[in-house]
């Protein structure tokens, strides 16, 4: 489990790197804060927090073009999400469904809803109460990568589990 978790972190970092590569704008400059105490708590993510879900569990699954079936590699992610939700029963989540830009706007809203619902149904099948899971579709309105190529589109075709309430902080 520990190895797995480390591997996941690596994957998350790799993913972040990919994202950074995608981002064309430099990140907003941080104001220099030399006087502030430097808090070095990177490894100590609060269990049951949004960061815990994102980094240690994995909040995102991906889809094939114009499809909404959960892919085999993503089943493990959803199993971890279900286990994590079982561990923190007060947490409620919203599943965001997203599409790439290669679809018309309203069709993509509907497609995003299909994807979000596919994630929700999978979580429910893994024991999560349906009442704890909401869905929302953003269609192609919230890309995380804006290049017009397949690798970028693949990143945008996604379902993301977001904490709505009840998380530790």
């Amino acid at each position: 489990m520990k190895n797995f978790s480390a591997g996941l972190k690596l994957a998350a970092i790799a993913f972040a790197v990919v994202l950074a590569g995608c981002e064309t704008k430099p990140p907003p400059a941080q104001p220099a804060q030399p006087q502030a105490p430097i808090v070095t708590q990177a490894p100590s993510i609060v269990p049951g927090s949004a960061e815990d879900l994102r980094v240690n569990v994995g909040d995102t699954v991906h889809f094939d073009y114009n499809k909404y079936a959960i892919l085999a590699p993503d089943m493990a992610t959803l199993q971890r999400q279900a286990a994590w939700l079982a561990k923190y029963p007060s947490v409620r989540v919203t599943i965001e469904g997203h599409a790439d830009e290669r679809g018309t706007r309203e069709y993509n809203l509907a497609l995003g809803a299909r994807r979000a619902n596919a994630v929700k149904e999978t979580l429910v099948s893994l024991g999560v109460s349906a009442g704890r899971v909401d869905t929302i579709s953003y269609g192609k309105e919230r890309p995380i990568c804006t290049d017009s190529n397949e690798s970028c589109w693949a990143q945008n075709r996604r379902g993301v589990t977001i904490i709505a309430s009840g998380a530790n902080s």
Partner: protein
Amino acid sequence: MRNWVLAVLLTMIVAAPARAVLQVDVNQGNIQPLPIAIPDFVAASPGDTGASQNIAKVVRADLERSGLFKPLNPKSFIEQITNINIAPNFSNWRVLTAQGLVTGQAALQADGRLRVDFRLWDVYGENQMLGLQFYTQPVNWRRIAHMISDAIYQRITGEKGYFDTRIVFISESGPALSRKKRLAIMDEDGANPSFLTNGYLVLTPRFNPSAQMIAYMSYIAGKPRVYLFDLESGRQEKLGDFPNMTFSPRFSPDGNFVAMSLEQGGNSDIYVMDLRTRKTTRLTFDPSIDTSPSFSPDGKQITFESDRGGSQQIYIMNADGSNQHRVSFGEGRNGTPVWSPRGDLIAFTKQSNGAFRIGVMRPDGTTERVLSNGWEDEGPTWAPNGRVLMFTRTIQGGRGSQIWSIDVTGSNQRRVATPGDASDPAWSPLIQ
């Protein structure tokens, strides 16, 4: 019919020996924008604050933008119009190749109103084709100009104009990864832009038939739902109370109904709501994506898109949901059907060979023509005369969206002036 044939035969027999009429069939032509001269209007009062020049300028721009007219450069004019109640010297305009001539004057009245007169002349036929007079508050001079453009357009082309109209659209700003989208409205020529909303994601606005109400989709409060925006009061109202996403709202031609999609458990179906009773009727029952409805101009049918056959295609049903049948059988995927106000065509988005383009076809699916040539053109909207389309053009590589327009013949493709990036245009009816 037999009588008619008989009459023709008789005429031939009687007339043929007496007179030889040379019968010439003309079935070739040379389609050109109509050269038209529009001198600055005569300033007929000392207090003229430029309306006489500005009106002529807006009329020239309107007609030029249509692609059907070629307003001539006023610097080339020989004759200066000083009195619009005297016939112009037509030969002075023929040498400029003008076929039409517009003369006008603007005068502030004692009561503070602006009076605008104009005449449209046939330079070759040497007669007045049109003469109208307008009274209004001076602040409305721009609408007078558009009304003049509409009147000229109608007289020359035979169909109603579309210059005195407005466009509601989504104004886009900010970086590509965190786009700010606001509901915005402007005149058809891009003048008088203003924002209606601020902050939260909004999409797919549509006018009601009186152009006073806008239906659109908003993510306000984190829940994507259909809303109504009353332009007169500025009031916004959620349309119905549904547990899940509602989207793609469209008014019926009488304004009493809104057709829209409601998503439940990942499945989107089309419903229609009676705005008077708020009663909702479900029209589609397929476990597929059914969305983007559009009423026929007579309100009796609805065209929509569905992927029930395996891919996104265009269907038609009766307004009560009966007789659902597919009409698009062309290449690729076809969606976002919009019925022409004239009834003769359905405009749509065609996705094939890696491109999204605007096409039109007859309502029976025949005679498909692809009009635009962008990389990602989608979401057509018709001018109220069914003659011109606007649509969203997304530029490859996350470089934003623009509004473009194109004539239904496929000519005159041009970008519509918007303040910044823009998408999801919807054309108003002629303003009331």
